[in-house]
């Protein structure tokens, strides 16, 4: 058995190609089932805006690869040349090293970004639901989550924020602490504000006031993100109330001058004011930053910090590579160990299949149960199966007695058909 990955990412393919090969989560089950029908027993697919990848286990890599390309060609309706020209294939050690790198954020466009781990987890969950994971992929993905967690906790790769909006949030936390019940004023209803606001919204801001030269646009943005539109003239009033200002208008000259802010700070009794100016040219006079208790960051300040944080992350990524190399070596030796004894894989696979089947039956009956209960039940089934399987595995490892092996094999083979399956498999080794 061989672990292989086939796919493309932001390094090998431009965005136009990545877009064409992107598939939504809802399409994944269909794709996975198609692959299974083509004889690829274990597979998982990962698709984000930066990558589309198929991870699979196979006895014959070349024929499986050909099958996958065929399926993808049909599914996305793309030319074969695209699938050949912009993609990569990693086998064996380099395939799981690649997965470790991806999950740890080392293969991401923004090194160390944390979302990718969640996306890898989703990909795995999808494969489990579609019943296309087996002994090897289960082991591989669990190991991957483990490695990614280690990289996160043992290096500072994800420590400092790098995106403009996450940095603005981080800064406002440094100034205000929790952002619950804070108020923000948005000046200008452009697209920039919208993305930044979506991030801010997650932090639990209480009020978002929106003003814009054209009131209609303010109203529209307010509807999109549940904010409150105000006429442009009320800017100075609102500045007195809010904690944070997000400015991104297309104005030619600064809207907010130092004199105005000085007045406002008096009215605010010097309560701190954090201003993020992402407009170009700037909406806020830079000298505003010199005023006591006012913190002004413009787009260049944020970009400089972002650059600095990114280079910190690159330094950390060397440390992370060390961790990953160690884990790759460990996984390789585990794999060799288990290949020596296909019976172990067989037993665990069978037990897992029974578990998944029974668990699914039970969870269909438990429609009213909440998610935590379901999770607990699943953990329970896993624990029982592991406890039951473990002595068999130990026995197989300790004793190469043919008779015992045969007995164990029989124990885990419910009917004739499966037995044939096992025979085929042993011949294949």
């Amino acid at each position: 058995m061989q672990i292989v990955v086939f796919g493309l990412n932001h390094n090998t393919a431009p965005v136009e190609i990545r877009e064409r090969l992107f598939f939504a989560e809802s399409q994944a089950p269909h794709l996975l089932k198609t692959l299974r029908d083509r004889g690829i027993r274990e597979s998982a697919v990962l698709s984000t805006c930066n990558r589309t990848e198929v991870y699979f286990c196979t006895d014959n890599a070349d024929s499986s690869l050909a099958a996958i390309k065929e399926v993808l060609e049909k599914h996305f309706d793309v030319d074969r040349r695209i699938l050949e020209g912009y993609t990569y294939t990693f086998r064996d050690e380099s395939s799981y090293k690649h997965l470790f790198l991806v999950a740890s954020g080392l293969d991401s466009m923004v090194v160390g970004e944390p979302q990718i781990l969640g996306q890898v987890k989703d990909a795995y969950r999808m494969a489990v639901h579609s019943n296309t994971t087996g002994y090897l992929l289960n082991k591989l993905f669990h190991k991957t989550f483990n490695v990614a967690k280690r990289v996160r906790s043992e290096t500072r790769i994800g420590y400092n924020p790098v995106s403009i909006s996450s940095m603005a949030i981080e800064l406002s936390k440094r100034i205000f602490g929790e952002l619950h019940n804070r108020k923000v004023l948005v000046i200008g209803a452009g697209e920039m504000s919208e993305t930044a606001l979506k991030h801010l919204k997650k932090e639990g801001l209480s009020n978002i006031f929106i003003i814009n030269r054209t009131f209609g646009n303010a109203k529209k943005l307010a509807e999109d993100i549940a904010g409150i539109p105000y006429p442009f003239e009320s800017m100075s009033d609102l500045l007195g109330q809010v904690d944070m200002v997000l400015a991104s208008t297309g104005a030619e000259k600064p809207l907010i001058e130092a004199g105005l802010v000085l007045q406002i700070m008096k009215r605010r009794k010097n309560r701190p004011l954090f201003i993020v100016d992402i407009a170009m040219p700037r909406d806020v006079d830079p000298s505003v930053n010199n005023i006591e208790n006012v913190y002004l960051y413009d787009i260049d300040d944020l970009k400089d910090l972002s650059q600095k944080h990114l280079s910190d992350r690159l330094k950390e990524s060397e440390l992370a590579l060390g961790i990953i190399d160690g884990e790759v070596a460990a996984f390789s030796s585990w794999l060799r160990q288990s290949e020596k004894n296909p019976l172990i894989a067989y037993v665990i696979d069978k037990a897992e299949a029974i578990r998944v089947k029974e668990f699914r039956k039970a969870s269909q009956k438990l429609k009213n149960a909440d998610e935590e209960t379901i999770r607990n039940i699943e953990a329970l089934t896993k624990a029982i199966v592991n406890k039951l399987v473990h002595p068999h595995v130990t026995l197989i490892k300790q004793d190469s007695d043919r008779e015992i092996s045969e007995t164990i094999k029989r124990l885990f083979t419910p009917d004739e058909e499966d037995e044939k399956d096992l025979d085929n498999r042993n011949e294949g080794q």
Partner: protein
Amino acid sequence: MNVLIFYSALFCYLLSALSYLVYLIYNKKTVERFGHYTLLAAFFIHLASVVFRYLQAGHTPITNMFESLSFFALCIAGFFLYLKRAYAISSLGCIVLPAVSLLLIWALSYPTDIRPLPVILKSYWLPVHTTFSFLGNAIFFVSFLVSIIYVIAEREIKRKKSLLFSARFPSLETLDSINYRCMSYGFPFLTVGIISGSIWAGFAWGSYWSWDPKETWSLITWIVYAILIHNRLAIGWRGRKTAYLMIAGFISILFTFFGVNFLIGGLHSYM
């Protein structure tokens, strides 16, 4: 016996200080919990040692350098525990606890034996005057540390070059609001400390105020904090300016306590 208990308290403080330093570097929740519980243990053992010493001596054990420093440290630890309940400020432990530990180690460099109480200190005013004064000073010590962190973190955020320091410590608003709280507790304590001292002086020396260096300096301290409160409430001073005045106020306290004891002398230099 009380000194033995004192040593075990010091041990716990050191353990707690160490875990808070480790927490600062590795940011592990379990380490923080350990630091918190050892701090709790240290505080109560320390309190026990002070109570024990009180019972042994038969008078309030704040009459010499060892006792004063020990009681001062106890007040700091207690106030920090109180603040921890109100704010998420575990990271400040890595500064407060080493400070407490150092104070206690310093205390040990003075004689620890119990001596008979000088006649002049035999008064009901002794516990009132010393307890309030030290409580006030301890609260202002905490605000002094908080202010130093505030000034450094604020500077970092204003200069926009890096965010390494402020990442480790509470937000500017949290620090500022701790300062405000310190001010509103510390000032009344300090005031009661000074007034009770003055009344006691009236009884003991026959004059309520004799412009002895310690009295003069405590008045200066009081005025600094009074200005601070006035500016905060009336003019709305916040943040950096408050922090600077807090630092100035504590330097004045230091001078009142140590400067006068060691450098100038006068009616108060018993220790």
